[in-house]
C-alpha cells in the first residue's frame, strides 16, 4: 500500500485509510470499466453489454455509499489533519466525481439504446466516429486518473491536468463537425442530438478525470490548483492573524 497513508502510531488508522484507498481504487476501476463497456457497446451495438452497464450502476452507487460512510467515520473518529486530512478530503471528493462519471457512463448506455432502438435509420459510422475518438481520449484520461490514485504521482497528475485541453479542443471540433453534419442532412438531427449528448458526456468524464488529478495534486502537495490555483487567497507569511 502507499507509504503516504501509513506509519501512524495507531496502526488501525493506517488500516482505515488503506481501506478507504482500496475502495476508491475499486470504485475507480469499476467506473472505468463502466465507461469502457459503454463505449464498447456504442461501437458494437451489443445490447447485452449495455444492459450489463445499466445493471452495474447500482454497484457504483453502493460503493459510493460505502465509501462516504467510511470517510465520515474516519473523519469522526480520527480527526485527520495535514496529509491525512488532505487524503481523506481528496478521497471524499474523488468519490463524488467517480459517481458522476458512473452516471455519465449510464447516460452513454442509455443513449446507445436510443441509437440502436431506432429501427428507422441506423446511425452513420461517420457520426459515431467523433464520439469514439473523444471516448478514447476521455477514457484514457480516466484510466490515468484512476491510476494516479494508485501511485500518487504528482508529475502524472500535473500532465493529466494539461491533457484536458486536448479533450476540450476535441470536444469543440466534434461539436463543429456535428453541426456541419446537421446542416448537410436535416434527417440526421435525431442521431446528431444523440451524438452531442454522447460527446458532452465524454467531455464531462474528462472534466471529472481532471478533477481527480487535481485532488491528487492537492493531496500530495497541499495546494489547491483548481481554477488556476488562484483561489482562495493564500494566508500565512505572517499575515494570517485575525482570520477567525
Amino acid at each position, binding site marked *: 500500500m*502507499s507509504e503516504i497513508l501509513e506509519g501512524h502510531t495507531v496502526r488501525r488508522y493506517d488500516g482505515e485509510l488503506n481501506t478507504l484507498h482500496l475502495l476508491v481504487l475499486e470504485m475507480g476501476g469499476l467506473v472505468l470499466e463502466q465507461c469502457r463497456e459503454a463505449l464498447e457497446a456504442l461501437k458494437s451495438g451489443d445490447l447485452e453489454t449495455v444492459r450489463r452497464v445499466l445493471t452495474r450502476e447500482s454497484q457504483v452507487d453502493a460503493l459510493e455509499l460505502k465509501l462516504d460512510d467510511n470517510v465520515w467515520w474516519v473523519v469522526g473518529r480520527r480527526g485527520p489533519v495535514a496529509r491525512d486530512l488532505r487524503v481523506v478530503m481528496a478521497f471524499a471528493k474523488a468519490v463524488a466525481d467517480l459517481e458522476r462519471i458512473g452516471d455519465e457512463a449510464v447516460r452513454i448506455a442509455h443513449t446507445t439504446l436510443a441509437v440502436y432502438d431506432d429501427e428507422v435509420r441506423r446511425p452513420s459510422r461517420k457520426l459515431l466516429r467523433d464520439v469514439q475518438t473523444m471516448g478514447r481520449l476521455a477514457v484514457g484520461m480516466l484510466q490515468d486518473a484512476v491510476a494516479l490514485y494508485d501511485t*500518487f504521482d504528482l508529475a502524472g497528475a500535473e500532465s493529466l491536468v494539461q491533457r484536458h485541453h486536448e479533450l476540450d479542443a476535441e470536444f469543440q471540433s466534434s461539436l463543429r463537425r456535428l453541426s456541419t453534419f446537421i446542416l448537410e442532412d436535416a434527417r440526421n438531427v435525431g442521431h446528431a442530438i444523440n451524438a452531442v449528448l454522447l460527446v458532452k458526456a465524454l467531455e464531462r468524464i474528462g472534466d471529472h478525470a481532471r478533477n481527480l488529478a487535481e485532488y491528487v495534486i492537492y493531496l500530495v502537495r497541499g495546494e489547491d490548483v483548481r481554477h488556476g490555483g488562484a483561489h482562495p487567497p493564500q494566508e500565512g507569511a505572517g499575515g494570517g492573524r485575525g482570520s477567525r
Partner: protein
Amino acid sequence: MTATQTSAVDATVAASRVKDAVNLSHIATVARDVRETVGEVRVRTPRMRCTAVNVYYGDKQAIKNVSVDVGQNEVLAMIGPSGCGKTTFLRCLNRMNDTIAGCRVTGEIVMDGEDINARRIDVVPLRARVSMVFQKPNPFPKSIWENVAFGPRIHGLAQDKTELEEIVVNSLKRAGLWDEVKDRLGDPGTGLSGGQQQRLCIARSIAVQPEVILMDEPCSALDPISTARIEELIDELREHYSICIVTHSMQQAARVSQRTAYFHLGDLIEVGDTKQIFTRPRHQLTEDYITGRFG
C-alpha cells in the same frame, strides 16, 4: 509513489517556504549547530520577542536556540511530544524556571524593549505582567473571592475595597464564571467543579491585569464541555491579552490558536499560521507529529 519521492517533494516545498519566511521576517532564524526553524518566527506586532533562548537543566539542554515572537492579541499554541520542552519554554516567558534549582536560561526575551531574562529584572512585577495558568486547576484553598482578590491585593492594584470588588467582579465576569458563583463568593474555590476551578484560576490571572497569559495545558484535566467553555474563553480573552498555550490536544491548538509552534526535542521545528500547520505543515516532523505518526 514512493516515500523518497514524497519526502523529496516535501523537502522542496519546505525549502521554498523557508526562503519566503527568511525574506519576510525581520531577523533570520539564528542557527548554530541546531535545526533551523521552519516558518515565520517573527510577526509584525510582537508582544514578546524571544531570540536564541537556551534552557539547561544542569548539563542537559532542554531548549535549543529557540527564537519566536508572541504576537499582540494572538493565541500562540505550542505543541509537541512530551518532553519536547514546550512547557519549559513557556515557563521562560515569566521566569517561572527560576524556581527550579539548577535551571539556567540564556538568550533574550524582550518585552517592551526590555530583556526580561536579564538577571537584574525583578520577577515579581514581571509575573504580574505575564501571569500563568497551570495544567491542574490549582485554586488556593480559600474562598472564591480570596482567590481572585489575592493578586490585586499583593500588588496593591486596588486603592480601597470598592476598587478591589470591582476588579474581582470584572475578573470573574471576564472569566465567564460570574453568573455561576456570584451567590457564593465566600465558598471555598476548591469546592467548584474542575472546569469552574480552571476558570477561577484564569480569573485569578486576569485579576492582576496582565499583558500576557501563559497557559500550560489548561484543559488536560477537564471534560469536553468545560474544555469547550475554556476554549471559548481563551478566544474572548484574545481581544485584550496575548496568550501562549501549551497543549497536547492538536485539535485544541487548531481550535484556539492563530499561530502554532511545534517543538521537538528542545528544538522549535516549525512555527506558522495554525491553519497552514494543520493542513499543510512544511516540516516532515511537524506533519508526522500532528498526523499521529510518532510520539
